[in-house]
C-alpha cells in the first residue's frame, strides 16, 4: 500500500497555510487545489501573469484570453489581478511567493532537483521551473518514490541535469515524507510513512541516506 495520486495531493495540501501565495506545478501538484484544508485560504499564482486563479470555467464562460501556465482555460476571482511575464517573475524571483509545489524526476538529500531534461530525449524546456525553485520561499516536491523500473528517485547525487541546487525543502512521495535542510548540514529526515508502508520498505527503496524521526 502506498499513497495514490489524490492522497499525495491531499498530503501536499497540508503544507498550505492561511494567507499563502502559492504556485502549483503541472500534474499531481495541480490536484492540490482540490484539497485545500477548511479554514485555509490561499491565493494561486499562475506564472503566465495572474494572481488569484479560479476553477475551470463552465462551457459558456470559456475565454481564450484567460488561461493558466498549463495552457488550460480557467476563471478569475474577485481578488484576481493580471500582469506581464516580467512582473510575474518579479513576484517569483523576488521571494514574494510563499510556496511552490512541483513534480520531479530526481531529488537528492541536499535539495538538488532535476525535473526538466533527460539527455538523449527531446527536451521540451524548463519553462518557469528554474525561476520558481530559485525564488520561491519554500519548495515542496511531490513525486513517485521510484521510477518505472524501480530505481530510487531520492538519490545521493542527481544523475540528470539539475533544475536547481539546494532548493527543495520537503519531498512527499507515495511512500512517505522527507524534510531537507537545504542550506544546513542536518541530514535528510523521514517524518512520515504513507499508510501501510514500513520503515524497511522505504529504506530499501531510498538510495539517499536519511535519519528516521518517526521515533
Amino acid at each position, binding site marked *: 500500500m502506498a499513497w495514490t495520486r489524490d492522497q499525495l495531493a491531499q498530503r501536499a495540501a497540508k503544507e498550505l497555510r492561511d494567507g499563502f501565495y502559492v504556485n502549483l506545478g503541472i500534474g499531481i501538484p495541480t490536484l492540490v487545489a482540490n484539497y485545500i484544508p477548511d479554514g485555509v485560504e490561499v491565493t494561486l499564482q499562475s506564472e503566465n501573469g495572474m494572481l488569484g486563479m479560479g476553477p475551470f470555467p463552465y462551457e459558456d464562460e470559456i475565454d481564450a484570453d484567460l*488561461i493558466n501556465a498549463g495552457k488550460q482555460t480557467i476563471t478569475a476571482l474577485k481578488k484576481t489581478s493580471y500582469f506581464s511575464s516580467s512582473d510575474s517573475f518579479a513576484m517569483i524571483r523576488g521571494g514574494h511567493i510563499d510556496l511552490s509545489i512541483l513534480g520531479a524526476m530526481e531529488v537528492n538529500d541536499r535539495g538538488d532537483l532535476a525535473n526538466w531534461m533527460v539527455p538523449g530525449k527531446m527536451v521540451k524546456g524548463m519553462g518557469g521551473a528554474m525561476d520558481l525553485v530559485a525564488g520561491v520561499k519554500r519548495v515542496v516536491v511531490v513525486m513517485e518514490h521510484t521510477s518505472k523500473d524501480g530505481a530510487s528517485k531520492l538519490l545521493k547525487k542527481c544523475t540528470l541535469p539539475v533544475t536547481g541546487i539546494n532548493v527543495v525543502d520537503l519531498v512527499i512521495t507515495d511512500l512517505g515524507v522527507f524534510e531537507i535542510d537545504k542550506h544546513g548540514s542536518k541530514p535528510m529526515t523521514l517524518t512520515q510513512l504513507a499508510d501501510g508502508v514500513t520503515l524497511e520498505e522505504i529504506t530499501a527503496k531510498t538510495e539517499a541516506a536519511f535519519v528516521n524521526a518517526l521515533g
Partner: protein
Amino acid sequence: MGNKVYPDAKSALEGFTFDGMSVMSGGFGLCGIPENLIIALRDSNVKGITVISNNAGVDGWGLGLLLETKQIKKMISSYVGENKEFARQYLSGELELEFNPQGTLAERCRAGGAGIAGFYTKTGVGTLVAEGKETKVFNGETFVLETGLVADLSIVKAWKGDKEGNLIFRKTARNFNPMMATAGKKCVAEVEILVETGELDPDAIHTPGIYVDRIVQGTFEKRIEQRTVTKRENA
C-alpha cells in the same frame, strides 16, 4: 506626427523585414499571439529568422506556420513541447534552439528594452543554463550574469490600441507582449479594437505609444490549447 496606422498586417511589416533578422513574438502558448503578423511574416518569405518567443506555437498555427516553411533558423524559448514539427527539425539539426528559463527570458527582454546590458539572477545557478556565464556572490548567495535582449523587430498583440500606439492588453493575453514591445528596434502591434487617440483612459494604458512604430487592427481566431471546463450540476 507621422501616421502609425496601417490597413493590414502585410503593409505594416513592409520595410521592416530582412533575411537573417531577429524577431520577438509576444504570447504565451497560443494566448495573446500576434496571429496576423505571424502570417504576414510567413508571407514575406523572409528566411533565417531568429525568433525570440516563450513558446513555438503548435503544428499549423502561430509560430508553427513559420516552422513549416523553414523560415526559422533559431528559437530562443523557455518551453517548446507542443509542436511536432519543431521536434523534428530540432532533432534533425535543421533548427537551433536556446532554452532560457521563463523568468530570465522575460527579464532579458525587459532589460533589453530598458537599455540594461545585463543583470544577475539566482535562476539557473549550478545548472546547464549557467555554464560559461560569469557568476558573482552577493550577500553570500551566488548569482549568474544574464544579458539584455533586443531584436530587429517585435510583433505584439494587444486588446485595444489607439492611433498613437498606446496599448491595453486583456487578462492573461498580456504575458510577454509589453516587454517585447519595448525591446524591438521596430515594433508592430496588432489590436482587436483600434480607437481614436484620446479614447483610452491614460491611467489604464499598459504600453505607451512611444514603443510602437506601427499599429494594425485585425480579426483573431484565438485558438485554445487545453479546453478545460467545469460541468454544470443538473438542477
